[in-house]
């Protein structure tokens, strides 16, 4: 193979970044559990918890799985089925009357 392979993947984050992300994940988890037990939060529990959960999801996928810095093809391969899964879940929730407009 005479052609030099192309390298689109950037260097992974350093240990300091990993530790920072782990700290943020821990704090978010503590906030989630705290919000669960605080009666004042009950009205806002679903949007608050879903937002916090999505934040943790993005942090792990972006930094620990390196999707933030890796080749964009990996983002497409991951995001396309993820979006389909979310769309199917939302459609089923409406179809079975679990949520309504």
């Amino acid at each position, binding site marked *: 193979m005479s052609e030099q392979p192309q*390298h689109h*993947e950037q260097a992974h984050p*350093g240990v300091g970044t*990993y530790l920072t992300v782990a700290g943020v994940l821990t704090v978010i988890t503590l906030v989630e559990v705290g919000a669960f037990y605080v009666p004042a939060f009950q009205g806002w529990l679903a949007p608050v918890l879903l937002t916090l959960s999505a934040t943790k999801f993005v942090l792990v996928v972006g930094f*620990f799985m390196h999707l933030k810095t890796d080749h964009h*093809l990996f983002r497409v391969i991951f995001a396309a089925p993820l979006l389909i899964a979310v769309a*199917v879940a939302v459609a*089923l929730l409406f179809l079975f009357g679990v949520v309504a407009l």
Partner: protein
Amino acid sequence: MTHAEATHRTSTGLDSRKIGMWTFIGSECLLFGSLISTYLVYHGKSVAGPTTREILNIPLTSISTFVLLMSSLAMVLALAAVTRGDTLWTRVWLATTAALGSVFLGFQVYEFTAFVHEGLTLQVNLFGSTFFVLTGTHGAHVAVGVLWLLSLLVRSFQGKLGPEKALNVELAGLYWHFVDVVWIVIFTVVYLLQ
């Protein structure tokens, strides 16, 4: 570049094994998406047996969630160590990740056992069926991940896990982190949003 790396390169310049792993993870999104959807669709529709509010142990599951999050940290530290050729810390972090995964599985076995003793089984109601299938499938994935990590640890002790094999650790890490993000969703949807 080693011969093995050259063999696995694709026309995109990316390694075929990594593309394959991301494709597998994409398919797993659909699997867990269907299981979580099924749980949500049947949520609150049980006519007999224990329900979520009566049986779920939030403090216990919060600790097991923290354990799994920290295992993800140990996993990336293992990858960082193998990339810089640090054999000792590669072994330490791989062993730590496997150990934390095993602790998580221990929590799950304890939880399942307690639920069965309280009358919640796979057959007793819709909550039991969907809960055990969803969390059991996730637990099976964690178990596979632990075995994968232990196999990497063995390869390291055999002297066959140097920096040139860092991608092997990265692929295991991708799988492990995916198992972690699935639990992030399950913890919120099943345990906290009752």
